């Protein structure tokens, strides 16, 4: 059977910080409806790979393409297609939870932004915190808000770095269900995770990385 056209194509990715090589010769193809989980010990290079995939880091060598377009953090097409939850998401200190989601929905041109915001607020269970400013949220609530910003916008590829972090057990359950539903709707997902239950439930492929993000197992 012919393989589907990849949404994400990474070829020979290499990234070093000074003399320290973090990622070397990393290759990956992810098709629509496929969920790839990157696993491996701390320092294996999972987060660096993900940062290169979203354009937050510039690779020293190799190419990263989303739907045939080279990834650049400033390319609006990439910004439209790729939703991310990695560690560098910032919040406006003077906008409340609901105002953040409203702004994201409207900026992405969602016509029924008010309804979408209400729905996602209920889903991530932040209704009681809707008027709170981000500085007063707990770390778990901030993570829920970050995930909500990724789910309230159109997307073709979802990139998540340890999305289960700081979520309670119920939150991780919800996240797993949500990601399975996303995958079944045809979204491509790449996530790094240390949670075996989440990986087992969500991932269609598990890529285990060794030192310098060397692919040890791809199953």
């Amino acid at each position, binding site marked *: 059977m012919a393989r589907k056209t990849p949404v994400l194509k990474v*070829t*020979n990715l290499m990234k070093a910080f000074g003399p320290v090589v973090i990622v070397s010769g990393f290759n990956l193809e992810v098709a629509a409806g496929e969920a790839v989980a990157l696993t491996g010990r701390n320092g294996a290079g999972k987060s660096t790979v993900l940062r290169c995939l*979203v*354009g*937050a880091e*510039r690779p020293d*060598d*190799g*190419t990263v393409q989303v739907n045939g377009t*080279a990834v*650049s*953090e*400033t390319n*609006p097409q990439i*910004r*439209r297609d790729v*939703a*991310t939850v*990695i560690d*560098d*998401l*910032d*919040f*406006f*200190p*003077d*906008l*409340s*939870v*609901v*105002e953040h989601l*409203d*702004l*994201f929905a*409207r*900026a*992405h*041109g*969602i*016509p029924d*932004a*008010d309804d979408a915001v209400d729905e996602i607020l209920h889903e991530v269970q932040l209704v009681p915190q*809707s*008027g*709170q*400013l981000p*500085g*007063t949220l707990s770390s778990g609530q901030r993570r829920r808000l970050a995930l909500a*910003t*990724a789910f309230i*916008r159109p997307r073709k590829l979802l990139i998540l770095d340890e999305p289960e972090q700081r979520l309670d057990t119920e939150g991780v359950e919800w996240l797993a269900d949500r990601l399975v539903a996303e995958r079944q709707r045809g979204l491509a997902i790449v996530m790094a995770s240390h949670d075996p239950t989440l990986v087992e439930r969500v991932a269609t492929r598990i890529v285990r990385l060794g030192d310098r993000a060397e692919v040890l197992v791809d199953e």
Partner: protein
Amino acid sequence: MSKKSRKLIRATPTAEEAAEATPEPVEPALERTFFFLPDVEPTVVDERELHDEMKLWRHGRATRTFGQVFQDGYFVLFSIVMVGAMLVSVVLRAQAGMAGCNTEACASGRLLLPSAMVLAAWALALGMAALFGPVLASAAEGFWLMDAPISRRRLLRGRLVVPLVAAFGVATVATALVGALSGLSWFQVIAWSAAAGLGSAALVTLAAAEQPRERTVLLKTLQATFATAALALLVVVIGVAAGWLPVSVVSVAGGATWLFAGVALVALFGMLVLLRVAISRLEQIRRARLLSGGSLVSGMQGAMYALDFGLIRDILVERKMAAIGHVKPTRGRGLGLSALIWRDAERLKRNPTAFLGLAASLFVPYAADALRMVQLNPLISGLALVAGLVPFLGSLRVLSRTGGLARSFPFKTAQLRTASMAVPAALALIWGLAASPAFIGIASTGADHSVTDGLTAALITAAAGLLGAVRWVTAGKVNFQTPMMATASGALPPGLLFNLFRGIDMVALITAPLILGAPGYWSLAIALAVFVGLRGSFNAEDLRAEQEQAKRELAASKQAAADKQKIPRPTR
């Protein structure tokens, strides 16, 4: 503690006991030992000894003596002395020049500007005291010492000295400078600056006395009163200079001197009384309240090492917003970029105090004109507008400081930045129109401009202020990975020095043609070029990265073509 005094208790069951309790074969448990304190009363700690010991540790960590630091930094010190001497000389000459001016405008400015400075210094002292504590402790002290059964009063007594001295020093020097530049006699300068310095110190002591009670109503009321009075005095200075207010202040000049001298004496007495009260209440300050100021200082110290004033402002904004905690949410309007602009407009209601700063900056062009600083007015007013507009550029700041948020919006960086500048640009335009009478000339200084020239100068100044503020909030962090620059103070990254001037540089660049008497279109052209650069249309790093990426893709496709297996054509 000696090793002999340690009591070691075996806490795990022996292998035999474990075997009796559970018939199932289990892995042999690791033998652990635990330390417990001996059952003796701890000795009473003397806080002074503890403090001396901490001092000793700190001194012990020092690797250089003051003499060595002085020798290494002689070039910097020499420069400071030279520049300081030049400044003093300029101040003395300006004082002599201003003292010779006998018009009503000069007389009112001479008396009222230093008075406004005194009130502003008091308001600032109260604001700073409330922000930092004024009594504070570091996180380490809070963790290691505040838990111990020691007297906090004895430990914290010395902490009162630093804010008192700082408030006294800053207020005295600033008021003396304004007084001298306004043309006050030297006796008057001493009276005014003593009132400012001792008054500020007394108010900081009042804040320290109120700190354990955590009451802020009195302090906030006093701060608002002094700030409003300072602004009112500035309005009077401008009104008199413009001839709008027929006020004569020459007759009250002598009385005012004695009034300020009296205020200084009362402040001194008040400070001494309040100091006793504050010291007696030190024991009651909550640890969280002490550490809050300490963490703020440590955060600011970190930012100051990189001269990152934007980060300092971020820390203050985060604290303010965390204190507010909850807002009444409002629904947005529009889609795409217009949603961002609407949200920025909506936020104006949430931050009304920012308008006070903007309104205060509007006094500057009028004051500069009243004080005959016609030529330098665009530069001075542009810098004041930078300070006034920065609070309105919160969106742009957050979108520029980390890539994550900007990446979540489906727009080009230039589009995002332009949208974030829209509301501040509208405010700058209003400011320019409101300031235009000052640039046309209100004080009959003999250097009045035509309406067109004045309006152009006002709008250029507004553009300079806006772009200066944009530059200030969008400047990146100092890159310590770049090749360092050799200086007398050691190796420094070049960006560290430029950080000092960010914002100021753009205002100076745009207003330079106006100051030098060149036509206004030069300033407009420079402003346009600066705008194009600041909105991020031409990011050199991005362009270079895109070029490299394109090269790599081309090489990869060539390689793929070369690797293709050639299928020989069938021959007949």
